[in-house]
């Protein structure tokens, strides 16, 4: 049985890592001039923790990351967007990962990215009360497939390289 202190320290480490990755990513200028399209590299950490420790710990890391990054980098609104996107993302990732029995992590990641964007679009529609923002959906879906693929493979190799005893 792993000690509780060790587990808390590990999760804090992962949360700090994802905040750092998020900060680094925010330095990359947007590649495509469509709001909402970004790499989502912090999702790598969510995936790694989800697969290694389960959904409870992954949700903890995710919420800590969203709180900290919204406080540090975002406006009030970005919390709502990130939170909804994050919850959508982690729930579907948990489900798909379970369906696939821990295999083919990139598929899990792609679905996570897709549902992250769907969640954000929903918030955008509700907040702006302009259903027209849905015209972004196809662009966001294609972007999600591409970025999810990348983050999925990154998470896969991260998991491979992580020491087993961690």
């Amino acid at each position, binding site marked *: 049985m792993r000690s509780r202190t060790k587990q808390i320290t590990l999760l804090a480490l992962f949360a700090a890592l994802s905040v750092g990755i998020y900060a680094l990513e925010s330095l990359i200028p947007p590649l495509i001039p469509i*709001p*909402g399209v970004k790499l989502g590299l912090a999702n790598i950490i969510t995936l790694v923790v989800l697969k290694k420790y389960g959904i409870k710990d992954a949700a903890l890391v995710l919420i800590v990351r969203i709180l900290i990054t919204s406080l540090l980098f975002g*406006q009030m*609104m*970005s919390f709502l*967007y990130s939170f909804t996107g994050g919850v959508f993302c982690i729930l579907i990732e948990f489900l*798909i990962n379970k*369906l*696939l*029995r821990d*295999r*083919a992590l990139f*598929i899990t990641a*792609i*679905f996570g990215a*897709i549902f992250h964007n769907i969640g*954000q679009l929903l918030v*955008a529609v509700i907040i*702006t009360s*302009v259903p*027209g*923002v849905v*015209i972004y*959906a*196809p*662009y966001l*879906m*294609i972007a999600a*497939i591409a970025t999810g693929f990348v983050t999925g493979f990154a998470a896969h190799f991260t998991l491979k390289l992580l020491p087993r005893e961690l």
Partner: protein
Amino acid sequence: MSDLNNETKKSNKRIIVLSVVIGLIFLISLCAILLKRTNNSGNIAYIYKDGELIQTIDLSTTSNGSFDITGGYDDDFEYNTVTIKDGDICVSDSNCKNKLCVKEGYAIKAHIPIVCLPHKLVIVVKNENEEDSIDAITY
């Protein structure tokens, strides 16, 4: 052992099914984007000169061609040649100094109104089918 094999087979099947789902989402999105691109009906160009609306052109029904918008006399004579091509509009020639209006290219393709500041000429394209678009979205 056979139980384990069964599990693997099951998840193999699911991987294939989910991959197909992803492929479908990709194809549908691609089609949606392509369909939207080609659908340019309802684009209307508004041409303003010195702050007044002098011309509106329905780009989807107007055939290719060009015309001049002139103003001023003698030394102050100014012209902008407006060209309509394949449902898009641009300023193809001008005697203004910096020729930014020419460099801006086609209004719809560039997603920006075309402005010639020295001649106080503005060309805005609006789509009457679209609702009033939002100013900005923040994430």
